[in-house]
């Protein structure tokens, strides 16, 4: 029983370096900057209240309000801003600007903790008030920011570390948050793959064809695509095999590199051939942070430091 407990603790609290956290912080910073820039033209239009934009944010907020009163939303910020005499549009631009600033601060690692908390909160407000307009990318950015703000920041690659020179890092806590991220991705891919393998379209390749000609993902012309039709069944099966097999093959050191490469190539493909650049980038960032470090041995790595396997007796008293 004690051995089991020890093994569980060693699994959940392996001693880790902070390289994964640096990848996550910088990656999410870049992701937030891209998010802000991609919505520059439509920011007000998408988040305006009733009668002033594409669809009312009040509608999404009303639905959310029924679900839970603690979900952050833009109207909280608007109410606070109006106390300072700011109008709705000005407040929305302040939110946009602060989000962009949060992304930049995360990239350089300045005020890392507060930047992570603030960016998570503002991004969540924007996503939840625009809940009718969200898709997968927003969920995964929220997941990434949620783990980032809870993780033991700052990391050694950040400006914070160079300026404030903290005493030490809790390597077991770093290991714990990386493990949670790894488990989360494993669960997400497993169920994504499982639900795809239940649909016949992913066996005969028709889902690949449909995904690639379906507006607004129709980057390539159907005339060009149809020449490659014999590949569709293999690609369709390949997609769900990669996803379903993720929790089984990503953990083993022998298969991790090949599986991670396959997953990254799959997301690069989604980005290029379906023009879902932001979705591709967040998935690549999360995968690299969760399973990237340790695959390549860096010159500065401590010779005995294991990135993936729990250090023997790391938690024993």
């Amino acid at each position, binding site marked *: 029983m004690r051995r089991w407990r020890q093994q569980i603790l060693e699994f959940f609290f392996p001693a880790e370096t902070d390289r994964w956290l640096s990848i996550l912080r910088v990656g999410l910073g870049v992701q937030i900057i891209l998010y802000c820039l*991609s*919505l*520059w*033209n*439509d920011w007000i*239009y*998408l988040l305006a209240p*009733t009668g002033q*934009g*594409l*669809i*009312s944010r009040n*509608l999404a907020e009303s639905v*959310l309000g*029924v*679900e*839970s*009163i*603690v*979900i*952050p939303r833009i109207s909280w910020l608007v109410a606070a801003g109006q106390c300072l005499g700011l109008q709705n549009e000005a407040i929305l631009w302040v939110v946009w600007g602060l989000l962009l600033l949060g992304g930049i601060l995360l990239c350089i690692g300045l005020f890392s903790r507060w930047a992570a908390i603030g960016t998570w909160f503002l991004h*969540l407000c924007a996503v939840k008030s*625009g809940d*009718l*307009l969200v*898709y997968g990318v*927003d*969920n*995964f*950015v*929220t*997941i990434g920011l*949620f783990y980032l703000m809870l993780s033991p920041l700052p990391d050694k690659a950040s400006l914070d570390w160079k300026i404030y020179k903290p005493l030490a890092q809790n390597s077991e806590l770093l290991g714990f948050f990386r493990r949670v991220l790894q488990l989360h991705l494993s*669960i*997400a*891919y497993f*169920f*994504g793959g499982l*639900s*795809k393998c*239940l*649909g*016949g*379209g*992913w066996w005969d390749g*028709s*889902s690949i*064809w*449909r*995904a690639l*000609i*379906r*507006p*607004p993902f129709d980057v390539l012309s159907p005339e060009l695509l*149809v020449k490659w*039709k014999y590949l*569709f069944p293999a690609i369709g099966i390949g997609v769900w095999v990669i996803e379903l097999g993720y929790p089984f093959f990503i953990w083993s050191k022998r298969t991790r590199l090949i599986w991670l490469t396959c997953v990254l190539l799959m997301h690069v493909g989604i980005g290029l051939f379906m*023009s*879902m650049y*932001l979705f591709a980038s967040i998935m690549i960032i999360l995968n690299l942070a969760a399973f990237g470090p340790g695959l390549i041995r860096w010159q500065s790595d401590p010779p005995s430091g294991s990135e993936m396997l729990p250090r023997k007796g790391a938690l024993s008293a």
Partner: protein
Amino acid sequence: MGEQLPVSHPVRQFIAGYEHLAGIESSYGYFSPNVTDSCRLVFEIHYSDGRIEYDLPSVGSHAAGLRFSSLLDKIRLTTDAELSELMIKMLTYAKWQEHPEAVKIRAIFGEMVLPSVDSFERGGHERFEVRQTYEFVIKETQ
């Protein structure tokens, strides 16, 4: 979790709140079990002189276009007819602001039925199948 509790129950509110804060409120079954048809909204804009124009919803970037596509999917999946009509009405109102001289707008919501590979090779193309139409008459007081 807690779905059997009343919506206003603090435990259910807390669980739902946590799920949203952590980004885990939705499932991960994108494009599954199969890829659905793409939804489309077309506006038939009527003017006082009898002229009729057709237009599509417009956004300013590809990134917003992806989000708009997600909104149309949500409208399709909404089981509450009043809610889906309300969403279409809001989108129609946004379109009317681009055409303030319009007197009536018919919003035609439907699906682009995609051809199979074989059908495409035989000359088949995507076709628009109407699911619902809504007619909004614009009054001066609006």
